[in-house]
């Protein structure tokens, strides 16, 4: 029984071996075609990857810019309120130099306000 099985196995192995030995002709350009595909796809990855990288950098820059602008705005707001409610010591000498320490009382409800200035020129 085992002997018969072994013979049958050998018989079948002959067929397998023959099939393995019988190699199809390789068309010379198959490898080149496959490598051309590889190059083409790889170059498309690179051309796509660069904008992605730039995009990442822009996102980083954008993130930083938003943070900076919000911080700056908040700082200006706080400083503005501070200057508005508590007049700092250095504001007086600056106002003296610029001669803006006197505020003229102007009646802007007068219908002829400023007319003399215009007529004076004529």
């Amino acid at each position, binding site marked *: 029984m085992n002997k018969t099985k072994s*013979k049958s196995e050998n018989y079948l192995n002959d067929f397998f071996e*023959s*099939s393995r030995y019988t190699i199809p*002709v390789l068309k010379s350009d198959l*490898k080149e075609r496959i*490598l051309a595909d*590889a190059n083409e796809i790889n170059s498309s990855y690179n051309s796509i990857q660069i904008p992605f990288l730039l995009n990442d950098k822009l996102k980083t820059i954008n993130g930083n810019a938003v943070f900076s602008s919000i911080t700056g705005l908040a700082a200006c707001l706080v400083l503005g309120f501070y200057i508005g409610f508590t007049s700092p010591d250095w504001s007086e000498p600056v106002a003296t130099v610029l001669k803006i320490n006197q505020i003229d009382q102007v009646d802007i409800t007068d219908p002829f306000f400023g007319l003399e200035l215009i007529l004076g020129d004529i």
Partner: protein
Amino acid sequence: MKSSRKLSNDEVEFFLSSFDNKSNEQTEHSSAHFYEMSDNSLLVAYVKGTNQAARVLVDRLMPKIRSHAYYRLGNIDDAEDVTQETFLKLWKIAPSWKKDNAKVSTWLYRVVINLCHDKHRRKTLYSLDTVSDIVNNSHSSIDKLADKSRQIALYSAMSELPARQRLAVQLRHIDELKNTEIAEIMDLSVEAVESLIARGKRKLIEILEIHKSELGYRYE
């Protein structure tokens, strides 16, 4: 075949950076190192823009995939189209390839099996005449003729097997894969693969017994 040692991603990075910095002469010498890299590491190198890695990968795996497609389709033109398409899918999936994924060769076998299956569905059974376009490495012309006759007879017999048995037998005895690899490719247990192969071989022996005398076998 040369043995392939698995390199870690760091090693791949280091190797690629040193590769970029070398002169042409040194580069030619160091390209031999690609042959020491695993398939997965080569794929990582390919994605990083090293075309030499793709070349080595093709040298290593293309003959197996092409041979499988040929034995499944029986037509060299179809087999080569399917091989090209299989590798095209590999290049496309390469950037999202994870090192925990299946082996590259296993993945390629799965793809080529599916593509051959699709091609088969679109066509009728392959003609045995197409198998004549072959190169044979046998010693004498008598051997060549005998091998060719046996190959045609085996194709004919295998086409009578159920699809899974046929695939398992082909992967084991023509592609010479291990049962564990076949189990992974076919998504079966090793025991199930062994059973498929055993049943397939029994049926093949039955079918081929009829052609024994035609094929020059005299023993019982």
